[in-house]
């Protein structure tokens, strides 16, 4: 049995496949545990990415907070 690649499944779940390919992939997923597991891994990756996005936004906002002038010269020892 030919398995789908990670990129194939990305295209499948993002609607980047044409109709026939999508139907074929959906049929394959019903029968193939390997590809279902890979699809599940991609969903877990989505959770990681969401965490990363929130973290970047939070730390980016903190890094933009104002600094008092006395701190700016602290590194010039």
């Amino acid at each position, binding site marked *: 049995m030919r398995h789908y690649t990670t990129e194939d499944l990305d*295209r499948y779940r993002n609607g980047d496949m044409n109709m026939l390919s999508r139907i074929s992939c959906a049929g394959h997923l019903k029968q193939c545990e390997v590809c279902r597991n890979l699809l599940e891994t991609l969903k877990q990756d989505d959770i*990681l990415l969401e965490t990363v996005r929130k*973290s970047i936004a939070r730390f980016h906002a903190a890094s933009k*907070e104002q600094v008092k002038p006395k701190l700016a010269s602290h*590194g010039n020892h």
Partner: protein
Amino acid sequence: MAFTTRKSLLSKIKQGDEISWEEFYASYRPLILLRAGDLGLTQTEKDDLVQIVMSEFFKGSRDFQYDRGKGRFRDYLKSIINNQAISILRKRKNLEVGLDDREFSLANGLEQAWNDEWQGHLLNMAMDELKNCVEPVTYQAFDLYAIQRRKSIEVADFLDMSVNSVYVAKNRCLEQLKKIIADVSESD
């Protein structure tokens, strides 16, 4: 794929390498500010806390080396931040009712908040590290598609690549990011 030979900041700290003021400040200032916010400090007090914590580490020098005998760095950093935050709060003790309750909370660590901030810090460090581990165009495709959530077709058009290449870039960066996260998590 180009792999970095540059050590992560946490690896340097763990191995007792010299850390520059600029490198430490850029990486840890946001974490200190977020912790200060969790502890209820005002904006002015937050700035004071950053300066005091930096002084604690660098003591007038441009570089410092972490003494591993002091234990896990994240715990050492937390204790410095907490202790200095308590000192700042004590300065306004006569101005505010209920400080004792806050000191009690600080003594108990606000542990979950610190763990959350630390995990966020690690993820940010991992993302910085990722930039050094993959080709610039691969990182750019990952950033635009997976972080900024642009549509794959838009990213492909913008970077003059196929949609499939965008997904390849995303998955390559994700695999590398997971390795880096595992690495920096071990290093903390």
